């Protein structure tokens, strides 16, 4: 039997994760085909706030500020959002297998993006279409799910499966009619998920919905514990279960849609990372939520480093997260050592 006393305390574990995240960010800046050393990183970042004489080349500054740093930030943001959305969905649906796409957010985004590519939209339009389509799809799922007879949670999950399938057949149809020379590869590449070509605009686009979603989830995290016991029990302990669930679902959907819109479909992060976090700090959302956020950011950042450095060409990050995530998940569920 695991006794808490033998563990590191949970706040300490979170601190260690925070330090690891900062180290990963610094390490990721240095990593890359075009070298930028730590010294240059400090200088270029500092030069944004004060006048200093450059000891770096203009190419280094431009690469760092316009490409590498936005991409690193976006990887952290997307990882943080997918993992916290996964953890939240698992709580409100009382289902450890729930992932951020349980209500069709990913499939909805994919449809929007494919449609925008088909219609020849710019990259900004693809992002906006993906985000909007993702939110609309989840809205439809909630609309149908709330009308389903029987248990509400089951109704929502079933509606999610149905509408997701409907929307993804739409995506398949778009792929069928898309121009096989340029549109189809673009759609396929988008569906595999990638942070390649991230620019500062993407970070700005994603930042607002992500902040609107993650801040309430973080603040309400203690109450999510009560929701995992079921609505009736939560209600008798003095919380408005229905309202809380709507808020948590809305916030989780918002950050999932924003993530998928800027990065494409990146699977497994939202399922594996919360489970890893559960192993490290237990199921109490007080620690689980920040642990999922930090681990999600670290994980996606490191995988993205692999994605841009492993081979001469980029490997879409969605492929790598599945490659790494699926075996890791098998390891997690077969390994002993539960914590609470």
């Amino acid at each position, binding site marked *: *039997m695991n*006794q*808490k*006393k033998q563990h590191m305390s949970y706040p300490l574990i979170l601190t260690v994760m925070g330090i690891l995240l900062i180290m990963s960010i610094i390490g990721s800046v240095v990593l890359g085909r075009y070298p930028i050393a730590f010294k240059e990183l400090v200088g270029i970042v500092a030069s944004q706030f004060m006048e200093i004489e450059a000891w770096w080349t203009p190419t280094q500054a431009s690469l760092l500020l316009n490409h590498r740093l936005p991409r690193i930030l976006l990887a952290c943001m997307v990882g943080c959002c997918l993992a916290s959305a996964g953890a939240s969905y*698992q*709580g409100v649906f*009382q*289902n*450890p297998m729930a992932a951020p796409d349980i209500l069709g957010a990913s499939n909805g985004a994919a449809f929007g993006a494919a449609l925008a590519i088909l219609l020849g939209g710019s990259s900004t339009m693809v992002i906006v279409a993906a985000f909007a389509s993702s939110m609309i799809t989840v809205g439809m799922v909630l609309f149908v799910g709330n009308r389903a007879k029987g248990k509400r949670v089951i109704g929502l999950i079933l509606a999610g499966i149905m509408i997701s399938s409907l929307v993804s057949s739409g995506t398949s149809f778009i792929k069928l009619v898309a121009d096989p020379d340029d549109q189809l590869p673009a759609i396929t590449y988008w569906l595999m998920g990638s942070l390649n070509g991230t620019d500062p605009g993407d970070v700005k686009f994603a930042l607002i919905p992500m902040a609107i979603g993650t801040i309430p989830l973080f*603040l*309400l*995290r*203690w*109450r999510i*514990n*009560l929701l*995992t*016991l079921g609505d*009736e*029990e939560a*209600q*008798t*302990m*003095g*919380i*408005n*279960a229905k309202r809380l669930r709507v808020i948590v679902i809305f916030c989780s959907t918002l950050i999932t849609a924003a993530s998928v819109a800027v990065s494409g479909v990146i699977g497994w992060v939202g399922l594996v990372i919360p489970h890893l976090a*559960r192993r490290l700090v*237990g*199921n*109490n959302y*007080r620690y689980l939520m920040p642990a999922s956020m930090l681990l999600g950011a670290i994980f996606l950042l490191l995988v993205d480093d692999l994605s841009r450095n492993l081979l001469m060409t980029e490997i879409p990050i969605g492929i790598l997260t599945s490659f790494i995530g699926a075996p890791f998940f098998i390891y997690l569920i077969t390994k002993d050592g*539960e914590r*609470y």
Partner: protein
Amino acid sequence: MSIKVENLSFSYGEKEVLKDVSFQAEYGQFLSVLGPNGVGKSTLFRCMLGLLKPTAGGTYIDGKSTADMTASQLSHHMAYIPQSHNPVFNYSVFDMVLMGTTGKMGNFSAPGKEQIRAAEKALARLGISHLRDRGYANISGGERQLALIARALVQDAKILIMDEPSSALDYGNRMRVMQTVKSLTKEGYTVIQSTHDPDQAFLYSDRVLAIHGGRVLAYGEPKETICDQLISTLYGVEVEVCSLYEDRMRVCVPANIGQ
């Protein structure tokens, strides 16, 4: 604190589940709601706890109607103790108990020192301090039931509503749990439990409410209420109510068993 249910009726669509149920439980009283499974005991509790909206009548706490109270306000008066269950995620016993403090906190708050002290006190009160850091899913059914009672105590509500607290427990645990609950009534808690076992009602309660077909069949002190006739109506079996220890105790035994 006294709780009063007045002419409460409830229907699921066309199907009438409860009809004109009235009773009350005073400060420090132990009330057993007696009846076979599926007779509306759980529905009655759900209506009292504000989880279902009665079609007529209502619940009053110290004379105040609960109909307009929010979940948070209700939770200050009434705590619900479900049957010991197995939640999806395994929490430590301590976290489980600590959840009871949520009703008195702000939306964005988490338990602090004061709540942690209250939870530790409740664990000690129920004699399960040693289970503090165990997983709630890894302890026995009786221990879980005690943990849920501890959770109700930190909720700081004076009316405890227990759904069949003894039904899933073995003989020893049942006795331990029920005696603990009985001792709480001496500290001023009002306890309302549902049970299908008339002996449980005889053993611990001050009042019995017998429900049959969604209506009140009998209500009063156990000795005056539970008789051969009542049990036969409720359960369709013949029993004899026997008196023990100069009538300080009564039990039901199957009729003809002594002959």
